Structures are given as C-alpha cells and as structure tokens.
C-alpha cells in the first residue's frame, strides 16, 4: 500500500467478462471460483437460471449473467467459469453460482476512483450498477449483487428459453462488441 489513506479507502474487486463488458464484484461476497462443468438443467426454470450444480454436497443454482443482463444465454467456452457468491436477502444467506464468460483479475479500487452510476449509456439496467470503478485507466462496472440476484425477481422471470432469433436481434442492437 502506498499510503494509509489508500489502504483504508481501497476495496478489492474480482473482475470478469460477461460478453465483452468488464464487471466487478466486491470480493467479500466471493466464496470460490471453479471451472464450468456438470451444471444440470432444471426444466421450466426461470430463464436466467442456467441450472444447478453440486457444490460440495449442496445444490446451488447457477445464474447466467449474460441472460440476466443481455437476454441471451452465454456460450460455454474453455474460459467459462462459475463464481460462487453468497448474498443475504431477508435475513437468509443464499449461495448462488454466477456463470461468467472469462475471469480477469482481483483489483484494488479506491473509493475516490469510483463514480456514481451514470443515468444513461449503460448496457445493463442501471439498478444493477453500484458504481463505475477505474483501474489501469479502464472502467469496470461494479455490480450491485442484491439487485442482480434479487430472488423474487428471478423467481418471477419467464420460464421460456430465449429463442435464437431474439438473441440475434439483441446482439445487433448492442452494436459492435469491443474486443
């Protein structure tokens, strides 16, 4: 740490990619990171729920963040990972696995380097965003997990799978992906 002030104000974030966008979650929420594998589909499940995974004897739901953010399912690649997080809602600790497209790194982001959520221009729902952090001169969208993983909202989601046509339509409106 460079000086005391930084040490106090900096928080660690785990950053990863969903599609081509970089996101971060506060590391205190993260319990583990594992390779993608053996996720069992749940019939008639809400569309953002990719399935469930046997995580050391517990059955944990896997949320497809691509589906939650952009409305189309993530394509599994060698880089796909599951980030195990734990959130607390209505006084209950709920374990959830996040399906992400690629893992990035753990970064310190100083509070003074975070900005408020912009009112427009974001590619995902603004209430999902806790703030925008700056690291190595690039922006990271810091996620508000309580909103992203709002249980009642997830429960109420459509159970139908997003069709290929709809996914293609979404992709075209998103413009060119940054690489």
């Amino acid at each position: 740490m460079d000086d005391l002030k930084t040490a106090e104000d900096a928080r660690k974030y785990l950053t990863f990619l969903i599609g081509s966008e970089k996101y971060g979650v506060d590391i205190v929420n993260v319990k583990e990171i594992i390779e993608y594998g053996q996720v069992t589909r749940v019939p008639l499940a809400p569309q953002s729920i990719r399935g469930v995974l046997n995580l050391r004897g517990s059955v944990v739901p896997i949320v497809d963040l691509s589906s939650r953010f952009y409305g189309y399912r993530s394509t599994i690649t060698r880089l796909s990972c599951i980030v195990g997080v734990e959130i607390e809602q209505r006084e209950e600790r709920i374990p959830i696995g996040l399906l992400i497209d690629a893992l990035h790194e753990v970064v310190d982001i100083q509070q003074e380097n975070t900005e408020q959520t912009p009112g427009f221009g974001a590619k995902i729902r603004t209430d999902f965003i806790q703030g925008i952090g700056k690291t190595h001169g690039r922006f990271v969208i810091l996620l508000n997990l309580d909103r992203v993983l709002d249980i009642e909202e997830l429960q109420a989601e459509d159970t139908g799978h997003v069709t290929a046509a709809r996914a293609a339509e979404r992709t075209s409106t998103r413009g060119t992906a940054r690489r």
Partner: protein
Amino acid sequence: MNLDRMKQTYFTETTEVLSEMEHLLLEIEKAPEDEELVNALFRAVHTIKGSSGMFGVKSVESFTHFAENVLDRVRKKEIRLDDELSATLLASHDHITALLELHRQGADDPLDAETAARGADLVARLERHGSDARQKAPAGTAVDAEAPRADTEAGAAESVGVGSVNWHISLRFKRNVYQNGLDPFSFINYLRGMGEIVNCVTVLDGMPPLESMDPELCYLGFEIDFNAETTKEAIENAFEFVRDDCQIRIIPPHSSIDLYKKLIQELPENPMNIGEILIESGTITRAELDAVLAIQSEAVAGDGEPPRIGEIIVEQKIAPREVVEAALEKQKQIRAVEEKNKRSMRIDGEKLDQLINFVGELVTAGENVKQLAAQNGDGDLMESADRMSRLIEEIREGAMNMRMVQIGETFRKFERVVRDLSREQGKEIDLVISGADTELDKTITEKISDPLMHIVRNAIDHGIGTPDARRAQGRPARGVIRLHAYHETGSIVIEVSDDGGGLNRERIRAKAVERGLVTAGQQLSETEILQLIFKPGFSTAEKVTNISGRGVGMDVVKRNIESLRGVVDVESEDGVGTTVRIQLPLTIAIIDGFMFRVGELTHVVPLDMVVECVEFAREDFEGMEGGSFMNLRGSVLPFLSLRDFFREEGEPPARGNVIVVEYARKKAGLVVDKLVGKFQTVIKPMGKVFGNMHWLSGSTIMGTGEVAYILDVPRMIMTIESLAEKEGATV
C-alpha cells in the same frame, strides 16, 4: 461455557416439567380423587423449584415456593384441589412460564411492574388457599411432626412436640458406666461449653427398689433440652468416649426439621440409599446409621422379613418421621431420574443434524460405490457393495428414527387450549386424543403446532355451538373435538374433527361471492365450495372474536402445511361435524426414492407414493398429447406426460412407462421415458430461486455427482387432475 450448556438443559427440562404440570392440572380436573396425579403434580412443582434454586433463578424459585406449599397441603389432604385452586395453579403455571422466559432474556431482575403485580396477586391467591386450610385443619404439620418418646417425662416431651428451637438429647447410661471410670455428669457439663442447657430432667425409671440397688451401677437417664448452634454430629462427638456405655438419641430442634427437608431436597440426584441420603443431609450420623443397620441385620437373623431402614430410624427416634419421608421422596425422585436416563438420553439437536448430514453423504457415497461396482462387473465387489449398501440403509433408518418423536406431546398442548377457550365462550367441549404414540420427524412436529392451533381454535369457535344451541338441535350439550393421528402410505395423517353443525356450504358460497373469490353464477362442486375456506381473505365468522375470524387462518394453515410437503383437506357433513385432515410426510431429510428418466434428466418420486409401474407402447397414446385419462384395468386414471410437461425436446422412445402415484387417496399416472429403480434419496433443498416451480419439491445428488429432481407428487396429482378434467370437459 459448561454452565451455559447446563443452563440450557435447565431451560429445556423446566419447560418440559411445566408442560407436565399443565397436563396434570388438566387431568386432575377430570379426576380430582386420583392421589397419584396430585403426587405427580407436587413432584413436578417441586422439581421446578429445586432446579430453579440450583441455577439461581430466584424469580422462579421464590414464586414456585408458594405453589409448592399449597400443593403440599393438598397432598396431605388438608385442602381440596377445587376448580378455583386449579384455576389459580394454572395461572401460576403461566406465570412461571413467563418468569422463565424473562430469565432467559435476562429481564427478570428486577421484574417489570406488570409481571411483579401479577406475581403478587397470584401469591396472595395461593396464600388464601393455604390459610383456608389452616382453619379447616387446625391440626397442622407442626403438631404431629414428632411424636414424643413414650418413656419421656411430660415436660421434655412437650418441648419436643410443639417444635421447640432446642435440640433434645435423650441419654440412657448403661449400668457399668461407673465401673468403666466414666462420669455421666462430666459429659453433660461438657455440653455447656457448646451451648445452653435449657432443661435437664433426670429419668429414674431404671432405678430398682433401694434395697436391691447396687451403688456401683448407674441407673440414670437424662432428657436434656439443649440450645446451641451446632450439628448433630458435634453433639454426638461430645459423647464420643461414652458411646459404648450409653444410648444416645439426639433429636434436632423442630426449626431444623424444615432445614433437613430442604437439605435433602437439594441433594444432587446421584444414586444413594436412604441411609446415605440422611447422612448427607446431616439428619443422622454415620454411627447412628451403623446402629440402625445392626438392628436391621439382627432382625433379619431373627425372622425373614427385614424391617426397612427408614422405619427403624423413625421407631428408634433417630430422626423425625417427616424428615425420613422427605428422604424417601428424594430417593424415589432419584430412582425416577435414573430410570428416565436409562430409557432416554438427551442429545443436542445440532449434533443429531450433523450426524444425519453425514449419513446423507454416506448414502450418496455408498450409492456411488454400488454403481461403480456394477459398471466394473466384478462379482465379489458387487456383492460386498451390496452388503455395505444394506448396512448403510440400516444406519440411515436408525439415524432417522432418532429424530422420530411421538405426536402425543404436541396434542397434549391442546388440552389447555380447549379447556380455556370453551370456558371463555361458555361452551362445554371434551378433547379426545387418539393415536398419540404415532411417530413423526421432530422438525415436522415443531412446524405443525401452529397450523393445528388454528384448526382447533376454529373448531371451538365456529364448529361447536353453545350447550343451549346444541340442546335445541337435540344433541348432547357437551361437544367433542377429536385429535387423531395414524400412519398411511409413508405419511402421517392428523385429523381434527368436531361434532358441531358442520360447514354451511350456502354461507361459504355467499361469503366467497361477497369477498369476490368466486362469481355468483360460477358452477362449484360440493368439494370445491369447501375448498374455498382455504382461500386467502376468507372468513365466515359473523363477529370477529379475539381467537379467529380475522380472515387469516385457513389459508395460512394450508400454506404452512404445503411448505412441509403436506396436504390439507376438509370434510363436512351437515349436523354431523367437520373433519380437517392433514397428511404429512414422515420425514424431511432422507427418503426412499424411485428414480426414472425423462429426456436427458433424472427425476425421483418418493417410493411410498408409487403404486405400480406399467409399460406401454407409444402408439397406444397417439392423439393424447398433454394430459388426459387412461384406462388402467378398467378404472379411469388421469395421467400426464412429463416429456410434454417439461417441454423436453427430442424424439421420445418407442416404449415408455407409466408410474402410478398416489397421495391422499388420489391416484395419477406419470408418463416417463425410462425407469431406473429404487434409490436412497438425501433431500437437498433447491433454494428460494425456484420457489415458483410448484412441481419441484427438492433435489438430490446421485452417486455420479449429478443432480436429480424430486417431484412434488401431491401437487403434481392436483395439477394432473385439473388438467385432465379440462381435457375431459372439452371432449
């Protein structure tokens, strides 16, 4: 930390004893002459006081003391346990329960004004009962406490009898005491160093006529009243040297009789014989006990039947009868505790849960080994895996059994509810309990208590009418509420029935229309009308009472029961009564499952809900997509293709299977691709995210580590029925 755990035990045990106390009071109301019940009640209250004292719960101890006093008099038949006293004692029970809870929260010192006032009021009421008794029975405990010695001088006898504050020492010297160089006077003189000799009477009964008297022999006895702050043992020690040459009886001051009794009651509950209890409490000395034992063995040598030690002690006036009785009581208590300890053992719930979790993992691992062995094809390995599997199954059953408790405990709580509420409403209602020994998972008993409370209250409130109303209908004035439990196809059924007027379907319908739950013209079957009472916001009570009729109730009941994977149903017949039937799974942790595949996924249904499996060819079902009825050996069975229901893609196999499931006397068929077979299923909760998926009741992890889904059969059956009915209607 250790003390915390002991305190926890204190809370648990006292809560249990309190519920016992309540139960006994209600039993005594029914059978006031039963002495055993009164004794048991006294013991319960006594235990509460004793253990509260031990753990320093002063608020409980000091209050319970008053109740104990009154009950002691009841036990001695000095006062009667009438309705009024019973009500006071029930209120005292509630007060003790409240005090205990306050102590648990650390809020009983000092007590809040309201609780303190309630306590004071109850103490006054209890004391009033006590003082009534004193007038009725002037010959209280004080007088008959200790019968005087037959050969004692009147003065001395009196001072013992009325319960003086003095010790009474009775000395009888042997003839040869002078010859042994001892002087009785020096011992009496020695006593003066320890306290004050209040009165000393010389007993000359042994003195022969003057002419035959031998001046070298001692014929004297003394009765001494001795006032000293000392122990029996210390007094006895004063006569240490003369012990062999004299008979000594030391009778404690009356004031210390209570002290002894208290000491005896406070002894730890270790196995002890009566003599040890008396010595521990300081009532008798070791030397006295030895003498008593000598007398006993002498008697045994004489004629077969040995006198009991307690009897000898009382006979020999070593200790007052009262104290010996207290010791006997204590011994009985110790034995009861010992027996209970032998019968059952208290286990920390968390430890048990942990064990069950491990057993769950073991079951999963065992299934895995079995599968691998089967894949491997090694005969010996398969056999040994099979043997292990059977053992694991037994371990699993044993572990699950540990969680099983009888439902009686839960039922008993309602005795008080029925009594209080029926009195409050001027109704006469008996509660009849049957099947109290039916066992189910402890977790379920905890969660079923509230729903049952609602149902029982409803039955009292709306089900059974006032005695006048009932007589007007030509029915007995006393109504009956029945709580009945029994096992049925892997589940437990609890029925709450009343012999009231039954549910009025017209009124239910009218109310439902008024509340906008159904439209006026809607066609409803009888059963459907009854089902309306489970709808949120439904209530037919004409006036809102403080018990039910607030429009919460049956819908909450239904929800709670469904969250336990159970179903609730109501039957009602005009003028005969209403029965609410709750069906619950026996356990919620591990079940025997029946596994099958649909598409690429594996699913499980509880094995005990499976009636049979029927194979069929796909073309038999041509043109019957979705749900409909099928013909099963002449009877009509609604069925559902899970492939369609789950919207599975891909080509179905040419031949499929129908699994016929049954729950709560309703059957339905599930069309699946492939049967896998029996599987020990450790239920894993699926998490809130899937809360809206009603077909799913949980999941399980297969030997391979993959997840399989447990179907909610009761809900599936309901879905299939309603789907099939719609199909049927359109045909």
